[in-house]
């Protein structure tokens, strides 16, 4: 009897219970069916020429070869990189700044935090509609400029190829800063106050405290913020589409909007899929290279 229970116990310790197996395998199957398989299909479509109606025609790497000579693709890549730097860089810096300003519990600080976070809860398309109204030739921004005597600066902000790109970044930033701020606020809350006290005793300046305590302590949050920013930059679509559709004549074209218009407006689904693959590789490359570096540092 005792031997019997002992083997049973041992079996329970080493074998994997079926419930656990089910918990692993069922989601894996679902993931395979709904994510991996379609993703592989996407790769396959990028090697074809397809209008969505007839059968896809296999053309090998033809779509990728076309990309090399496609000036709109070049514009879209450059704009996406610029978007990553401006949108990503500014939202990280301003989000961190806002978090540092608002981390201390003071009277009314909750109001400011809420105000900065509020844009995050709005749908981006709704946000874009409001900004579109403000950017109109007789909208709020031009009226304000005229009101303060800067009438010469008034502009058709979204219709001018020189300003459209930046006019689209502003609403995107307006939203992202609040989001990044919340991430940093959570990170700042996790820093042990004792560290700052010790630094103060040692006579560290505020800059030294920031440089040598705050930033190193925030390194894990930085990793999250970086991934969020890179992913959000590369998938930025709704706000651009709602405001300019990548226009006027491709001046605010991102890879994501170019992919959409190629696939679903021009019905060149093969080339659109190839663009999607490029976006995927870019996002994947940036994230993996960062993670590899982060893990190496941790070791």
């Amino acid at each position, binding site marked *: 009897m005792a031997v019997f229970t002992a083997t049973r116990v041992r079996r329970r310790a080493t074998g994997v219970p079926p419930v656990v197996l089910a918990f692993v395998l069922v989601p894996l199957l679902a993931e395979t069916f709904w994510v991996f398989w379609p993703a592989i299909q996407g790769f396959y479509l990028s090697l074809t020429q397809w209008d969505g109606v007839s059968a896809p025609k296999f053309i090998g790497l033809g779509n990728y070869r076309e990309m090399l000579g496609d000036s709109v693709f070049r514009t879209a890549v450059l704009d996406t990189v610029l978007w990553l730097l401006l949108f990503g860089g500014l939202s990280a810096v301003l989000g961190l700044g806002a978090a540092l300003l608002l981390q201390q519990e003071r009277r009314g600080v909750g109001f400011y935090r809420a105000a900065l976070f509020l844009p995050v809860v709005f749908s981006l398309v709704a946000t874009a509609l409001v900004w579109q109204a403000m950017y109109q030739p007789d909208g709020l921004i031009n009226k304000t400029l005229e009101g303060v005597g800067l009438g010469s600066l008034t502009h058709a902000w979204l219709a001018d190829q020189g300003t459209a790109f930046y006019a689209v970044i502003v609403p995107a930033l307006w939203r992202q800063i609040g989001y990044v701020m919340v*991430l940093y606020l959570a990170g700042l809350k996790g820093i042990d106050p004792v560290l700052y006290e010790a630094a103060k005793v040692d006579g560290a300046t505020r800059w030294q405290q920031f440089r040598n305590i705050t930033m190193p302590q925030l390194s894990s949050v930085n990793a999250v913020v970086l*991934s969020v920013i890179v992913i959000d930059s590369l998938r930025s679509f709704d706000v651009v589409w709602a405001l300019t559709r990548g226009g006027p004549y491709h001046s605010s074209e991102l890879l994501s909007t170019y992919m959409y218009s190629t696939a679903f407006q021009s019905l060149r689904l093969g080339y659109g899929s190839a663009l999607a693959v490029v976006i995927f590789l870019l996002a994947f490359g940036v994230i993996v290279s960062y993670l590899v570096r982060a893990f190496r540092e941790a070791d």
Partner: protein
Amino acid sequence: MITSPPSRRGFLTGAGAIGAAALMSGCVASSSGGSGSQSSGGPVTLQSNLSSPQAKSAMQNLVDSYNKRGSGKAELNTVASETFRTQLPTYLTSANPPDLLTWYPGSVANSYAKKDLLLDVSDIWSKPEFAGYSAAQQRLCTSSAGKKVFVPATYYWWGVFYRKSNFAKWGLQEPTTWDEFLGLCDKLKSKGVAPIGLGAGGNTAWVASSWFDYLNIRVNGAQYHRDLLAGKHRFDDPEVRKVFDRWSEALPYFDPNGTALAFQDATTALLQSRTGMMLIGTFFADAAPKDQLDDIDFFRFPVIDPEIPLAEEGPTDGYFASAHTRHKAEVKDFMRYMATAEAQEIYIKGSSGTALPTNPTAKDSGTALVKKGRALIESASDVTQFFNRDSSDALQPTADTALTRFLAKPKQIDSILTTWQRDAQKIWSQ
């Protein structure tokens, strides 16, 4: 903190979902070729893209009145117009498709007919419901293989719209020739208004194509225009260049906000007398206050070359049926009803009222404006549809890019046309 993985997963699922949907439609298309079963049962489904509240209820009235006749049963399924546009290929290739769909005749319907996706309805065209339909309409509904694949229901017209009270106040006359038109622009400019409103900003860049269409059919004729859009001529040909030379003459009179305002806002500018006139289709009336419409009149796009027969843009809307429908006889019965004067009057009464019936015996809404519009199209020697309808929705973005760039940088016209041709070639060649 937790938000990072879901956003990545969301991205992947999104990409995956697109792939899956695409793949499924691919499977369906390959497996459904032989299914022609006539198994009846269940009502005929009419998939409609008329999603504005007024048009939607007008369609419902139409379906209700058909059901009341007792010859068959139909069911309306309204889909948001943008969804409808992107999903149309999937609807048509599906093995279990919606039976009847709202869409466009001409080259758009023909491109689907060439892929055997549309039901041949030649037999119902010999029925009495279709007796008075003009030769032009018959041509429009016939595929390149000579089969009738479409039933037209309504159309509308394009014209240069203006406010009667303003023209009277300033002592201006409707122009008939291009020179008179440019003279009119000069006078309007001297009154301090922007002579020509456009409305190609926001999400309605396609409105600019109306100028290209009209200039091309006035300078080179309707047949050249259709051939050009079908890829039989090139956008960098000297004929197309002539179109832009004419356009350049009128360009100084365009409202500088032309590419910044959507057509709805440009309509407001016209009604508030900030612009003098505007080339637009009658759908603009849907967005305009009803009491101001009485002050609105229009004139025919001016004649440029008197040798060229006068064609007009009269985009036609109607229905085609999927070739894979399980209710062939029932669909045809429903389509015959849609062609009757009774059905078209029911729809026009319920909708905004500027649409015209394709059945010549059907009554329109009877306002002076609509009567003038109907006379315009009936007197036209040829009727074109619109840029995207005479080519394809896929070609439209190439025009939007080229024309907005021309409006901003008219001096770069040569490189604009080269790029346009290159972009269009990619669409034609697939």
